[in-house]
């Protein structure tokens, strides 16, 4: 159906008639009645880790042109932009290939012992895109107490239970860095995985290996519940969180520090420097969803983290 919609009435009618993919209720019913413990979104685990990996790998290659953040001394501390269309399509293509096997991969990731990580090579993706398409991930470490965050990281950012005022800390997750390897080591390992998969006529090859390092790569924290919730994402290093909404940002200066504020999603992004370390921080809060959004509540949290 490609006819133009001419009125809201027609929009309503077509929305009512729109075909929705069916879901398999019976399968889920069995899972729900058997499941007694909370489980974490398997999809999110894969996608988050995949994104972190991809972010790290493209950070140096992409053209940075959209925005920058400067510190008090006027030095640029972060800049970011869009991927070009071709690059975005490549990652989307890779993502779609992985989605076909997401259940198996997620099951495996979920059963990983803490500290271990898994490398996944999809034959089809590897043949098309090579090294870029291979990713390593580990199970995110769930936390329910702020003190579970490594002390130095916690102190650098002044993370406390009451950071967000009356919305106390609820839960979070920590990602640790994977061990560094040379490009030659990586290439050799991937070639071996690829050969094994081809020999076995398997669509993918998975290798559980190594130990994560104790260095925190990123932290995701939730304060408060539901409409009052505030989410804080912190990544260390030069990694960037990219969004299609970059153009909507407005720059706010507060006490010499630059913040990027997105009114639509009630989010601010900024950088905290501690010695030679850089923390890229995003705070997102829908607390004011019933009121006119303002950056002030987010800035109040940011100031506590900066001081």
């Amino acid at each position, binding site marked *: 159906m490609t006819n133009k*919609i001419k009125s809201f009435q027609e*929009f309503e009618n077509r929305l009512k008639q*729109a075909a929705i993919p069916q879901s398999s209720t019976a399968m889920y019913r069995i899972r729900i009645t058997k499941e007694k413990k909370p489980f974490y979104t398997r999809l999110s685990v894969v996608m988050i880790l995949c994104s972190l990996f991809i972010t790290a790998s493209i950070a140096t290659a992409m053209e940075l042109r959209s925005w920058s953040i400067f510190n008090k001394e006027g030095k640029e501390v972060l800049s970011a932009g869009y991927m070009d269309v071709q690059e*975005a399509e490549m990652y989307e293509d890779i993502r779609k290939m992985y989605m076909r096997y997401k259940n198996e991969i997620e099951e495996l990731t979920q059963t990983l012992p803490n500290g271990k990580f898994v490398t996944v090579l999809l034959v089809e993706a590897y043949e098309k895109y090579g090294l870029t398409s291979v990713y390593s991930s580990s199970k995110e470490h769930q936390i329910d107490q702020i003190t579970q965050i490594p002390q130095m990281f916690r102190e650098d950012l002044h993370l406390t239970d009451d950071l967000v005022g009356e919305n106390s800390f609820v839960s979070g997750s920590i990602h640790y860095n994977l061990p560094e390897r040379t490009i030659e080591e990586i290439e050799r390992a991937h070639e071996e995985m690829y050969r094994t998969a081809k020999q076995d006529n398997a669509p993918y090859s998975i290798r559980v290996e190594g130990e994560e390092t104790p260095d925190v790569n990123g932290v995701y924290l939730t304060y408060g519940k539901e409409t009052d919730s505030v989410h804080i994402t912190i990544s260390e290093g030069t990694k960037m969180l990219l969004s299609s909404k970059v153009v909507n940002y407005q720059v706010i200066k507060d006490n010499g520090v630059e913040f990027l504020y997105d009114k639509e999603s009630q989010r601010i992004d900024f950088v905290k420097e501690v010695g030679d370390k850089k923390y890229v921080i995003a705070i997102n809060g829908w607390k004011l969803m019933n009121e006119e959004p303002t950056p002030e509540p987010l800035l109040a949290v940011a100031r506590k983290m900066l001081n």
Partner: protein
Amino acid sequence: MQIMEENIEETREERMSYLINEYYQRIYVYCFHILRNQQDAEDAVQEVFIKAFQNNKLMTIDYYSAWLYKIAYHHCLNKVKRRSFFQLVTFDTRHHRNVAHTVSDDLELEEIMCKLKAKERALLLLRIIEDKDFAEIALILNITPATARKRFERVKEKVQALIERGGHND
């Protein structure tokens, strides 16, 4: 004491089974329209019912429909938020492409839906597909009926503007 606990557990499961029979597909459709992605919606609807199952209110709540929609609404918005934090491939491009391939053959409709925010889609769904009155929508969204009506009118105006522009493909 052990026997009592088992009985309570059994009743919870029976009630959950009733809710799944009654609401599963509707909550799935609701999640689907907010998230615009079948796989995400399937994950979300599972998680919504697990949250409901684990919630203390399961055995005492009177108004299941609004309660489940409320859980689904917040759950899906949180998923969208989290996705916007972490996903590298832009949301608009990604879900637009998915929509074209897997959702519906009504590309005009899909293009308009893509232009709306998740919260706006959620509101449209409650009103148009679920045919809920503003009092119930208000209950789900935790706002007043007047605000619900006002918001719906705003979304309606936005949709109308998109239609008039004919530019859902800008």
